């Protein structure tokens, strides 16, 4: 029994210590932002490996999610004779929720895990120490560009996901199930609001981009410098990012749309 409390106490303390290190790490990362401006090439290289390389998985997933939405939406809506509003339903689900959330989850799996593994291996092979000894701050040189790239990429990827999803819904709803083409688009245009829907969706994906990049980079930087440590850190990135994104999504949704 005593042993149980001992373990509980120790892990609580360790988690708080880790939270402290993570916060400190975030501050150092943010402090490095002014140094990026004169060296945009560092950022552009990362935008490519973090953002551009994620486009394929985001597009394909977006297409399928949109097609499923078209199919499921059609069956529900046509029961009420409301299949004209299919476009609205597909677009609203994507722009408000599925676009930001699903792209963030995919992003954590594709780019986040890669970031953790990369930074973790750099630590394990003493590349980060080596940089410090060459009087180059690894946080500014390595971490900050990657953080900014993640922050900037995810909103764009989420927008891409939603746009392709809407086309997927169109392929199924209009192309296969015979919903009126004009109605699909005009219902969407009439009811999707720029501030309520689109802007809120963008805010969500910025928040997710922030959190996922932070978790991924911190886990890599804080890893035990061994191969086992790196593999565990990579797993933790995916798991913690998924939890954080879903929990944060609930909080943000409640603040934006709910009257809770």
């Amino acid at each position, binding site marked *: 029994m005593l042993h149980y409390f001992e373990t509980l106490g120790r892990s609580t303390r360790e988690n708080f210590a880790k939270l402290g290190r993570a916060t400190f790490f975030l501050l150092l990362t943010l402090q490095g932002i002014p140094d990026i401006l004169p060296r945009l090439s560092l950022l552009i290289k990362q935008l490519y490996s973090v953002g551009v390389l994620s486009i394929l998985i985001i597009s394909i997933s977006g297409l399928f999610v949109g097609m499923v939405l078209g199919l499921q939406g059609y069956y529900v809506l046509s029961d009420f004779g409301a299949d004209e509003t299919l476009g609205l339903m597909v677009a609203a689900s994507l722009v408000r929720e599925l676009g930001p959330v699903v792209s963030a989850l995919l992003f954590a799996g594709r780019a986040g895990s890669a970031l953790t593994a990369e930074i973790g291996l750099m630590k394990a*092979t*003493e*590349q980060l*120490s*080596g940089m*410090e*000894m*060459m*009087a180059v*701050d690894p946080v500014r040189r390595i971490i900050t560009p990657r953080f900014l790239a993640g922050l900037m990429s995810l909103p764009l990827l989420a927008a891409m996901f939603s746009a392709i999803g809407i086309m997927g819904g169109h392929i199924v709803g209009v192309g296969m199930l015979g919903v009126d083409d004009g109605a699909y688009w005009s219902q969407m245009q009439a009811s999707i609001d720029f501030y309520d829907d689109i802007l809120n969706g963008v805010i969500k994906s910025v928040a997710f981009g922030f959190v996922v990049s932070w978790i991924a980079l911190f886990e890599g930087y804080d890893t035990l410098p061994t191969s086992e440590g790196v593999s565990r850190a990579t797993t933790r990135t995916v798991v913690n990012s998924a939890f954080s994104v879903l929990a944060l999504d609930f909080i943000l949704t409640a603040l934006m749309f709910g009257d809770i």
Partner: protein
Amino acid sequence: MTELNKNTLISIKNLGFSRGNKHIFDNITLDIPRGKITAIMGPSGTGKTTLLKLIGGQLQPEQGSVTVDQQNVHQLKPSQLYSLRKKMGMLFQSGALLTDLSVFENVAFPLREHSHLSESMIRTLVLMKLHAVGLRGARDLMPSELSGGMARRVALARAIALDPMMIMYDEPFTGQDPISMGVLVHLIKSLNTSLGLTSIIVSHDVQETAEIADLIYVIADGKVIDHGEPNALMNSSSAWVQQFMHGSADGPVHFHYPAPDYHSDLLTT
């Protein structure tokens, strides 16, 4: 010996450091003279790499101080520490090359970060440094395509890229064939005399190190056991030093990591 004079570049006083419960150093005091080659020797796992990291300010000591060029390393502000580090080269045991950059770019890295030289100047400097370690022809290879010994030589070229006032070599001779070993020994010696560098060599290779070192410190069990000129140490009266310098398995320095008695350990179920 410990009083600070102009001929001492690095002075370590009463240094204490531990990892977890394990005391790595208790109360180490040593001076490293300017412009000389000082070797630090000792059994594997005594904390030689740790000592270099303490000198470079990457680890924080529990007690005592490290003074480099009259600056207390652990009381400097980050910006001061960084400008001190520009004057310190360090050759890591593993090489620590940046894996996403080619050999050429690795050597160019400190130049690009800290100088505003033109591209052609950088090229000239990098090729000169690579030539010195015999790897000018390997400039386009990636670190993953190098052998361990080659990687360490590239790391040496990188460490001297900024023409530092001192270099710390962590095991420079491991994994070198006899030819590159000879060249390296010669290179370290000649860098030292021609550029007036201060060199610290951590090594197990007693022969090679004794050949070029001006001064040797032998560390074991968290203490400096002996120090002096190579010849003096070879004929040291201390059994510890005799054992280490001549590589015999029996003697006061333990080959085994601390463990319970062998026979009773085997018989425990």
